[in-house]
């Protein structure tokens, strides 16, 4: 009798939730007992049918949801981590695990007041715990909600290994990075196609003696200008950022902006780029970085700033550093303050179980001992439930 009542409640609230904690958790037994009349699911219990991040709730935690292929191409032309892209290519699908940090940020975004200045969220955690993936999950949510997404996949890439460094035409003391800027503009165009025709410029921009962009032109034209004229692409980036900041909070503006920056600590770190006289370039002297700093400042409203730290690509930081005030430094922390820090930790038992079942389902674990209990314990010990360590470990089993 009680089981039937439970089944009705479950059916009403959740589309097809099944928690999978295999060590005899109550949820599993309840769910299994409560769904006897339903059709047997075509997928396994670690998968969720819900591929819309907006509808994902706490009882989806640990389950994998599939990214629709169309979304992958538009929303993430450059956003996903490299290893995840390889995994997507191998498994022929992109499955992201629903985890508490991302769900927390999404719930804040759902309830936020967008007339106030933009909220800042920061994902931090030990190396390989899933900060970038949580960021991508949140970006997917924003994009499904119809927001405009400004996604900088890794700010560290802009402060190191720069092949071409031009002095900026706009401000003599700064330096441009045309290649990186053009690349980014291209990806930005892919992500936000539908907004490019809707947003109009508010200012007039003069690029050279003969080229200028009038007021009131669609943003798409600005972006194309930056892609075609490589020399002025960094300034175009700056202009785009300025426009978006101005227009995002406006009531007649029809969009909300989500700024997603990975590797935020690059903004207040050091760079390895050198000028011709071998003196190092500081961060302020780079146009892209300068504009990015302006972007993550929360003096605009109508959106959110979601960021993640990263020690992996960072320069001159110790390997064991992962806390915000260590990686951002004093200046960065003061600039970013106030923000909402969100911890991303290693997999819990349930999430680990889910990941293990997913790899088994994809037949990624070939070794016969990996299917036994002892094998699972070995995996737990060796990877310490760290997502990236587990992924690298399973790569050659």
């Amino acid at each position, binding site marked *: 009798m009680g089981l039937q009542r439970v089944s009705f409640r479950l059916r009403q609230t959740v589309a097809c939730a099944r928690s999978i904690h295999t060590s005899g958790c109550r949820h599993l037994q309840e769910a299994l007992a409560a769904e006897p009349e339903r059709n047997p699911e075509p997928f396994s219990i670690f998968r969720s049918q819900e591929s819309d991040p907006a509808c994902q709730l706490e009882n989806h935690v640990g389950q994998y949801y599939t990214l629709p292929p169309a979304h992958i191409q538009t929303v993430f032309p450059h956003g996903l981590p490299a290893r995840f892209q390889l995994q997507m290519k191998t498994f022929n699908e992109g499955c992201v695990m629903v985890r508490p940090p991302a769900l927390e940020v999404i719930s804040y975004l759902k309830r936020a007041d967008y007339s106030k200045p933009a909220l800042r969220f920061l994902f931090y955690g030990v190396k390989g715990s899933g900060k970038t993936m949580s960021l991508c999950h949140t970006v997917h949510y924003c994009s499904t909600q119809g927001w405009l997404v400004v996604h900088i996949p890794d700010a560290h890439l802009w402060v190191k290994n720069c092949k071409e460094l031009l002095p900026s035409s706009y401000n003599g003391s700064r330096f441009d990075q045309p290649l990186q800027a053009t690349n980014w503009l291209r990806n930005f165009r892919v992500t936000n196609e539908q907004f490019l025709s809707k947003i109009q410029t508010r200012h007039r921009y003069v690029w050279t003696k003969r080229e200028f962009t009038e007021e009131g032109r669609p943003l798409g034209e600005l972006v194309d200008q930056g892609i075609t004229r490589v020399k002025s692409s960094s300034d175009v980036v700056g202009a785009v950022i300025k426009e978006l900041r101005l227009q995002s909070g406006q009531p007649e503006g029809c969009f909300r902006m989500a700024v997603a920056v990975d590797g935020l600590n690059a903004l207040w770190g050091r760079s390895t780029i050198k000028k011709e006289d071998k003196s190092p370039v500081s961060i302020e002297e780079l146009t892209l970085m300068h504009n990015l700093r302006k972007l993550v400042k929360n003096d605009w409203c109508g959106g959110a700033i979601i960021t993640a730290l990263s020690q992996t690509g960072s320069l001159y930081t110790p390997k064991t550093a992962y806390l915000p005030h260590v990686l951002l430094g004093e200046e960065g922390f003061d600039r970013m303050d106030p923000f909402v820090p969100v911890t991303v930790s290693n997999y819990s038992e349930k999430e680990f179980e889910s990941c293990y079942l997913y790899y088994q389902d994809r037949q990624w674990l070939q070794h016969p001992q990996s299917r036994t209990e002892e094998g699972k314990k070995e995996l737990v*010990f*060796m990877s310490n439930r760290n997502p990236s360590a587990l992924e690298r470990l399973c790569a050659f089993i």
Partner: protein
Amino acid sequence: MAASCARTVGSLFGKCGTCSSNINTITSRLSRQICSSSALHRKNLAAAGPEKFTVEFIQKQVEEFNIGKRHLANMMGEDTENFTQEDIDRSIAYLFPSGLFEKRARPLMKHPEEIFPRQRAVQWGEDGRPFHFLFYTGKQSYYSLMHEIYAKIQGLERQQDRLRAKGLLSSDAKPLSLGSSRWIIKEELEGIVMETVTDHDYQRFLQLMERLAGLPQAGAEGAEGGEGVWVLRFRQQLEAQASRQAVAALQADAQGRAFSTAEGRRKTSNSSVVLRDGGSGRATVNGSELLSYFPVFQDREQVMFPLQFAGVLGRLDVEAQVSGGGRSSQAGAVRLAISRALLGFLSEREMENMRQAGLLTPDPRVRERDKPGQEGARRKFTWKKR
């Protein structure tokens, strides 16, 4: 001196009637004396000195040893009557401290029986006639031993027949209980018999001993009990190696959780590990997570191996402190320390399994010293022809 030497020899093995010392025959006697033992033969064929260890010489050495033992006990202020060999070793190590690595090169004082190789006694008298009836077999001791074993077998069989005739044959007679021991190997038999023993001879010896030991009533009490003791002279005791391991005792902390501590070393790394029961299988090294301290897969695997082998992966928590050496030697030190600490949680059999898996053996390899005249420990300088 030579006369007394000959007389002592003669009196000891007094079969020769011509015991009255005849100085003219002394030299001939001496020239026919002791053949050196097979051990010496093997080692230096060129320089075997037959007169080196005569019986008087050995006796003199024994007396000197005993007197020296009493002097040493006096010097150390200990009891002269009950001065054992261990006490002697200890005192010598104290009085003559040596930094030599080779233990056999250090000063020692042992009973002459252990120092001087055993030698075969003279086997023929002054008239040239051998004493033993089996001398002309060439291996008199070996064949006499075989005859002895066979005599015992025959004796037992006859006794059994007698008992059977009387009807007192008990069917529950047990054969000899040999315990955890093994038969002596060929080299040991050669040492007892003082002659060269071929493989074939050794096989025959083993067969005969097995036959004797397998007889029912060989282990029975009474006169046959003596046989048991006699047979055991040819058996070598095997101690289970693992019982020599020092097992770290389990202690309980304030919450009642059992834990054990142990240390381990490898190359120049030292590590001490605390294993706690009832945990979730977490491992911490020097305060940080295992994953961050040992980023290399090989090191983590080394640390995991003892726990996986014993099957306690998710049960015990590991807290390790390690210092010195490089990453691989630190991992090896932690592994050894974990294995030692695990002994308190395991049974005897599992301990033996671990010992056989090599988990409890400290790795003796250390860095070899560089030698003068060479580039490194082994690498030589480039050889130039001219």
